């Protein structure tokens, strides 16, 4: 069972995590972090490897610093890491991103399964999984909360539309996973050290993918961002209710009743 896991490094603010002990936000010092959903995809791959053997490749496209996220995947236990990085890849929309990833997967060649997180915390489009499946002509199953392998097929529990479905897909296939699927392991310090000291992240550029630069990045993207602007969300002025909690509560209830909302 050879698996490719597609991962992305996302801006840190996209990954807001909550310290349940203190009720405060955890903010990583690093500017970029591994997309949280992707950790669940890596974990799912590691668990399948434990049962069925085989090897796992983590694949990412991004600027050179995305190397860190691939090291994180290596420290969790993936066997190989590949980073697609080239100036030509910059500014890609979901289709151009999927195209570059599809060429890389074809170059990796040996795989039975591609796993992705459900969506990234920055773009949140959830489009790259389905588009990669299409470009590789693979069956796709999104929103997986369970994956098991049976002979030459994969069985997936899918959370869809307020219900659950059990689907069977032929292999190879592409699956995007929900967070409920597992609890990603936290790599021990020596694995992290090893990932940085002894392991290699293969860097592939435009030449390695064997297609002209016009297919990638901004140029290869059917969608264009025409304008980005600030939108202040305002509506009239706010009336602050002040005082002790019970006073405030009474004032609020009276107000809501007065306005016919209760």
């Amino acid at each position, binding site marked *: 069972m050879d698996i490719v896991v597609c991962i992305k490094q996302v801006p840190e603010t996209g990954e807001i995590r*909550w310290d*349940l002990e203190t*009720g405060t936000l955890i903010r990583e010092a690093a500017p970029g972090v591994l997309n949280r959903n992707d950790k669940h995809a890596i974990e799912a791959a590691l668990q399948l490897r434990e049962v069925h053997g085989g090897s796992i490749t983590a694949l990412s496209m991004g600027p050179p610093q995305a190397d860190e996220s691939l090291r994180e995947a290596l420290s969790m236990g993936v066997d190989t890491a590949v980073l697609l990085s080239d100036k030509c890849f910059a500014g890609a*929309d*979901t*289709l151009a991103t999927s195209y570059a990833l599809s060429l890389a997967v074809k170059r990796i060649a040996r795989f039975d399964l591609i796993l992705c997180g459900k969506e990234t915390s920055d*773009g*949140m*489009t*959830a*489009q*790259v*999984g*389905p*588009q990669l499946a*299409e*470009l590789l002509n693979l069956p*796709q199953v*999104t929103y997986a909360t369970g994956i098991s392998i049976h002979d030459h097929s994969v069985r997936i529990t899918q*959370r*869809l*539309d*307020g*219900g*659950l*479905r*059990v*689907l*069977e897909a*032929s292999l190879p*296939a592409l699956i995007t996973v929900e*967070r*409920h699927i597992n609890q990603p392991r936290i790599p021990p310090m020596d694995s992290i050290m090893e990932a940085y000291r002894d392991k290699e992240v293969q860097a592939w550029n435009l030449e390695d993918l064997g297609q002209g630069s016009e297919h990638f990045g901004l140029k290869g993207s*059917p*969608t*264009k*961002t*025409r*304008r*980005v*602007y*600030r*939108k202040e*969300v*305002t*509506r009239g002025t*706010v*009336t*602050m*209710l002040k005082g002790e*909690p*019970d006073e*405030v*509560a009474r004032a*609020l*209830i009276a107000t*809501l009743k007065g*306005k016919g*909302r*209760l």
Partner: protein
Amino acid sequence: MARYGDIWVYAEHKDGKPARVSLELLGAGRTLSQRLGVSLSAIAVGDKVSELAKELIFWGADTVIVADDPIARDYRTEVYTRIIADQALKRRPEIFLVGATPIGRDLAPRIAARLNTGCTADCTDLHIDEETGVLVATKPYFGRNLMADIICPAQRPQMVTVRPGVMELQDRDSGKKGELIHADADLREEDTRVTVLETVREISESEPLEAAERVVAAGMGVGSREGFELVRELAGLLGARLGATSLPVDEGWISEDHKIGQTGKTIRPKLYVGCGVSGAIQHSAGMINSGLIVAINTDPKAEIFQFADYGIIGDVKEIVPAIIRQLKIDTKINDGSFMRRFTRCSMILTAYGT
């Protein structure tokens, strides 16, 4: 030949009824089609879905393309992609609108990839550019209160997904006539690579969040599961539905279908109460059109106070219990049996001349 192709809306359906978002998109599609002077089509795929056609026409479609085939009984990405993409290649729509439901978000990107065109996810506004006639799709952009206008200048159709509740439902015209086109599925079961072995439907709650008149939402400021449960209790006492920002959902305290915002639902209740909600655009995009907005937050600088009608600066764990206490006192006073007992008691006392 017409300068532009038609506008298409994907007609999602469940239990023989069109999804509300598809009807919302027919309203939005109507505006776009009038602007371009083209016709509006709905495309429905499934088994025994021809019955949907009339309703889709009443909601604005001029034409309904129906692929009615037992092979399409259950939603399967590849089957639906094949049928819809074949029709799109044949009929060349200019614009294709898809509801950003779990199914729409699975289906639209795959169709876009097959047609080698762009698909802009989770748009909050759509309009036609005066000069070029291209569709300008507005969506919240990563970062604080940033919006982006996205276009797909060269490829067709211009595809977008729109979250449920973003577009307002337009009027239904039960006198409207339209055309029905049957499309072949042109697919055999042997060609499919995914089989549905089992479907377990959850019992859907009586009222979807989008339709609720009152919504109480929990944000990261609730701090803990206990804080979250307080908000749940408040929602119950107010007769409100419980909603959340993405954090309580990610922590697993509440299911995904309670998420409000850019990647969740868009609501327009008469009353919205945000408990520990900061008001970042990822959430506010889904609730800004609420009637009356009440915000409870410890941070006086929280974004939500910029657009709330009533604000309370304070900890959810102190303010919410106080509101719960006051509501319970209120209920007691208004409780019929209490009043009857009270009246009876005073009558007895009166009888004894006290």
